């Protein structure tokens, strides 16, 4: 067997992991922030393993080998399992062809994430416009029966554009992860009154609640009449429902 291929594969996997976790922030497109130390450690272990294998196993492939003799079914340590070649795909993809974070395509095919049931809502701060997360807006519109603070207030939210609503409306969207991109869920707020920008553009929207149904129940639309839509930079860690950037202390 071509023994030098094993170390190459290990080193490539290690470099791929280190590339996305240690040298860049690409890992945030796939997993949560807390995975970073584990990814760096794994990358380092794979790199070391590959280097060790390159140095220690050199010159062993000539001559008879006791493992070859009783490994009749091809299951010895010296032969590289053929399926291991598949590891080359994620390794090279991480190194030079990293796919983008999930966005409008995924969000448009999902129902909006269910927000947790709440009964007590803090009064909204007096500032205008009020910065809010999309989840907070959703739960206040659909669950805040008593105070109905949201009515008539000017609200500021940040997310990306998912086009395709009825009548020129579109969805302000955030994709949220629990563990990795395989369990992504999205929160959406329908935006009226401003034409949609291209899909996946990050924007900050200022506007007021789009009236309809009975506020504080499920019949109330999670929607906003936009007064102003501004392009913003994509946040550093996009897979969370955070406040608009300028509103953070």
């Amino acid at each position, binding site marked *: 067997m071509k023994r030098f291929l094993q170390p190459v594969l290990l080193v490539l996997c290690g470099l791929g992991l280190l590339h996305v976790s240690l040298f860049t922030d690409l890992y945030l497109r796939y997993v949560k922030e807390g995975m970073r130390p584990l990814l760096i450690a794994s990358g380092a272990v794979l790199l070391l393993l590959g280097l060790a294998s390159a140095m220690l196993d050199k010159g062993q492939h000539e001559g008879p080998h006791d493992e070859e003799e009783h490994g009749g079914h091809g299951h010895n340590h010296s032969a590289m399992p053929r399926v291991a070649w598949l590891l080359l795909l994620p390794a090279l993809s991480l190194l030079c062809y990293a796919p983008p974070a999930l966005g409008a395509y995924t969000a448009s095919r999902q129902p909006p994430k269910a927000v947790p049931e709440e009964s007590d809502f803090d009064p909204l701060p007096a500032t205008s416009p009020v910065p809010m997360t999309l989840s907070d807006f959703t739960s206040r519109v659909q669950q805040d029966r008593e105070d109905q603070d949201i009515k008539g207030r000017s609200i500021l939210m940040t997310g990306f554009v998912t086009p395709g609503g009825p009548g020129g409306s579109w969805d302000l969207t955030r994709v949220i992860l629990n563990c990795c*991109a395989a369990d992504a869920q999205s929160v959406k707020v329908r935006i009226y009154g401003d034409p949609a920008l291209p899909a996946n553009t990050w924007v900050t929207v200022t506007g007021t609640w789009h009236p309809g149904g009975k506020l504080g129940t499920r019949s109330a639309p999670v929607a906003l009449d936009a007064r102003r839509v501004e392009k913003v930079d994509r946040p550093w860690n996009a897979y969370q429902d955070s406040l608009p950037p300028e509103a953070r202390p």
Partner: protein
Amino acid sequence: MEKTGALVVEDQAAAGALAGAERGPGSRSAPPRFWPLLLVGAAVVPGTVVILLGRWGDTPAVQAWRTVCLAVTVQALPFLLLGTALSGAINAFVPESVFSRVLPRRPALAVPVAGVAGVVLPGCECASVPVASSLIGRGVAPAAAFAFLLSAPAINPVVLTATAVAFPGNPAMVLARLLASLVTAVVMGWLWLRFGRTEWLRPTARHTGHRAGHSRWNEFRLGFQHDFLHAGGFLVLGAMAAATFNVAVPRSVLDTFTGTPWLSVLFLAALAVLLAVCSEADAFLAASLTGFPPVARLAFMVVGPMVDLKLIALQAGTFGRAFAVRFSAATVVVAVACSSLIGGVLL
């Protein structure tokens, strides 16, 4: 236009190659008549393929597929490394006598002990497959090793804590998950004792343990490396399958099954197999499936860590396909039954 041109060239290149093959080795010295075309083909075809692949790879659906596939792989790799390192260490450093002293002699008793021992391996389900394989290699009864394989990812403290966080104020859900997973693991172990056949298992000759005259550290390194490459390949295979379902089946399909309780239990169990969400996160996903009854959500959390596409791929790679198919199918049935019974009583 460019594409058809490339196709024509490719055809001619293939024809030339065929003709060359027919002429046999005798006429090898004569260059094929179309050799300039072959040259052009060699220059044009790879470039066209790369460009077409690149363009196809950047459509939103394929991008989402690649992201999910890579995410499953990246998320699981550290845990797979942990599992294979542990398996390599068990193989190289732990003498066989340790297991025979710790586990009861009778396999029927060893099964529940091994099931409860699953508490000690924190992490995702990918770690447990190589560990179970090395346990069998060290003389542990397969039934006990399989009970450990099933229970470890489902009842470890990390997963139970995540469940408690995902279902605040609902400790019955945590208890139900613990019990249903443990019972499923033990029942599967006993089922293997009664019906299991050794010939379904691929011989695990590579876990031979420490041999005299070899350096333990070198054995550890070689075993670790081989197990990782082997299991890693199957992990990628499983991640691809999971990503395909993840992207191809829109989540809005979920709403059609929320009505009937029995159907919803089966549906969420199937969903757990297809989505291959890691066991530390599935509780959050289950909590968000608010349209479903609690029993169905419990089934989702019990089946998910025991059977899913990437686990089936890992098991097929480690223990052989004959085993993986039978074992996974039986586990789904037992897990659905256990979670329906226990969930029906507790929730």
